[in-house]
């Protein structure tokens, strides 16, 4: 069994390691590959950066600090929803 994974295998393991536990063999092989291969090292840094950026964007939207450039609920739908609510309150 070879220890050094290919680039293809290495990037699969990088993603896998973000969602579940790797085996010891996988972990060692991945570390070794990332140490020797600049492309895969860069890839790893960047997918971690993307994970972080997604979380920050979600936090920003949830804290209402910003609208995250998303459009508001269309006025027409708002009017429909209000009518719907008033209707069921009066019955």
């Amino acid at each position, binding site marked *: 069994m070879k220890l050094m994974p*290919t*680039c*293809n*295998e290495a*990037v*699969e393991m990088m*993603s*896998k390691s*973000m*969602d*579940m536990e790797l085996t010891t063999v996988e972990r060692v092989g991945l570390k070794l590959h990332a140490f020797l291969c600049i*492309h*895969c090292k*860069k*890839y790893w840094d*960047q*997918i971690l*950066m*993307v*994970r*972080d*950026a*997604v*979380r*920050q*964007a*979600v936090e*920003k*939207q*949830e804290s*209402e600090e*910003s*609208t*995250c*450039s*998303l*459009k*508001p*609920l*269309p006025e027409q*739908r*708002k009017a429909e*929803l*209000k009518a*719907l*609510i*008033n209707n*069921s*309150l009066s019955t």
Partner: protein
Amino acid sequence: MPNQNETSNSPKPVETNPETWVDEYGDYLYRYALMRVRDPNQAEDLVQETLLAALKARKNFAGQSTVKTWLVGILKHKIIDFFRKNSREKLVDPSDNSDVELNDFFDKNKQWLPNAVPNDFPNPTQAIENEEFTTALLSCLEKLPPRTAEAFSLREMEDMSSEEICNILDITPNNFWVMMHRARIALRKCLENSWLNQNK
């Protein structure tokens, strides 16, 4: 013991007036849904389902949280139900050719193809500040196969475990990590393109 009556245990029922919900929380709920399902019509429908469910259940709203937190909690369930329904119905668009082709990234020897090698991209902090990042992210997610995008949303936006997601999407752990890998490799590439082009 003069204070005993004042520290009564029964909490005052908190009134929330449903007539104000649309104006107060409509945009917030809509953006919350839009970020996760991306389709505007679907996001509108989810807001409607949420408000109607809240209307029915408002007697149960005990005021332990804010009205907004309570409504978001209902919306989250509606979004998960929507994803679950999609996968139960095996909703596959026949015109959907958006599957991520891993052969576009690696050669026969499993090395990076020259045009797939990761380029530098700018630190996203600035893009998040400028709100460019969300726009780019949502349009990149739109290019993924729908269930792959759903798996990504649940994992990275809702921070759910792989077990929970496999259950909702009715997939095996093996399906799940392959989907996530495809999502990440395609998103990274797509974000690289949109940032590099924007920041040229």
